[in-house]
């Protein structure tokens, strides 16, 4: 009788280390995935992103199959703004401060561009179609003073801020976006009006834009204060 338990104990403690192999195997797969995942995801997203973006149930978003937007909000609940309530202030070191309604912005010359949207954490969405007013056009209308060297964007979420140098803000691919994929920018995407800076990571593209303030210094914005690069160019 004492034979059996002893034999059993030995066998449970001295079997094949399958557990360790499984753990190491998963680590190996994870490492391969990190290195090759971008290419794999690129293929997947070409096929699947259009489906996900048009899925009215939102259920497909639960499965991480392709590249889709993640919705970032740093404040608590953000009030919805529409054509009747929205306004954009251009203020600070300018000769002609002004306030635009949504209709005012729509009446300005619109430019269209289709570019990728990159988050600094690694996700991205291919070929997003945007239209809006070139930021440089708004800056020209405001006519910055000589001391103006940078921009501070504010959001009507009451918390978010972003910064760019005046030179960066004047780039052709920085717009105050009014539509995305052919429709007005939705609330979750930062609508009715947001920034889209095509050459920069997503955190530079302030959602729920409420104010463009010209400043003498490039004051770090919300994520810059939390360690993200001050410039935020994609790939740097």
């Amino acid at each position, binding site marked *: *009788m*004492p034979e*059996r*338990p002893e034999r*059993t*104990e030995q*066998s*449970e*403690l*001295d*079997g*094949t*280390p*399958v*557990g*360790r192999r*499984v*753990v*190491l*195997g*998963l*680590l190996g*797969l*994870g*490492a391969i*995935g*990190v*290195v*090759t*995942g*971008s*290419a794999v*995801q690129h293929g997947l997203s070409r096929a699947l992103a259009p489906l996900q973006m048009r899925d009215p149930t*939102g259920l497909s*978003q*639960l*499965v*991480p199959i392709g590249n889709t*937007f*993640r*919705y*970032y*909000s*740093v*404040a*608590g609940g*953000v009030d919805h703004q529409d054509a009747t309530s929205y306004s954009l202030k251009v203020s600070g070191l300018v000769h002609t401060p002004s306030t635009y309604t949504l209709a005012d912005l729509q009446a300005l010359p619109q430019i269209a561009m289709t570019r990728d949207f*990159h988050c*600094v*954490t*690694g*996700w*991205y969405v291919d070929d997003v179609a945007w239209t809006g007013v070139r930021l440089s056009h708004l800056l020209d209308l405001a006519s910055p003073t000589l001391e103006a060297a940078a921009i501070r964007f504010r959001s009507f*979420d009451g918390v978010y801020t972003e910064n760019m140098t005046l030179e960066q803000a004047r780039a052709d691919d920085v717009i105050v976006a009014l539509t995305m994929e052919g429709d007005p920018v939705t*609330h*979750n995407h930062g609508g009715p009006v947001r920034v889209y800076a095509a050459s920069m990571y997503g955190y530079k593209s302030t959602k729920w834009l409420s104010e463009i303030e010209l400043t003498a210094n490039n004051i770090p914005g919300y994520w810059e204060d*939390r360690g*993200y690069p001050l410039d935020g160019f*994609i*790939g740097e």
Partner: protein
Amino acid sequence: MSDPLPRFTAAERAVHWAVAVLMTVCIATAAILYNGSLAVLVGHRHVVEQVHVWCGFALPVPMLLGAVSAAYRTDVRRLNRFTSADRDWLRSKDRRSGRIRVGKFNAGQKLNAALSAGATLVLLGTGTLMWFTGLVRLSWRTGATLMHDWTALALGLLVLGHLAYALRDTEALRGMWSGRVSVHWANREHAAWADEVDPG
């Protein structure tokens, strides 16, 4: 009639419940960070991120601390080792009948432990690459995000399965809560182990 059998020491239970709390917080915050509707509803992304990341970094700590306990180390070894009986158990259709005498852990528990440990390490590694954005190039961060998403989904399913089995078997749950299980339960579910702790 007979006294309950000691199954898990206080140290092992402390490790289990500490990991359980951290895992729950990680899963809840992950849901907020990942699901668009929840993300916009809850907001406060930076705070949620901080909680998620630091609970994630803390997740292995109880397991590492557990290594000072001999009982914990022995059980890790048991989970790691697969015997021929484990292979038979996985292949058999009557694995719950008691024909194959199971040790302290059955092969399913061992697989779950290995997969959970591996998945946790993958999440830790990929999460580190996503959090410290200066560590690797952008395409690797994209790969890390993809791996993090898929591994999280898989680990979430493992955790749900683990919970389902635990809630179905209250005696197993009692073992992890109080440390002791009935002889009857031990003989039925883990006969070889029952003989080992109580040869009488």
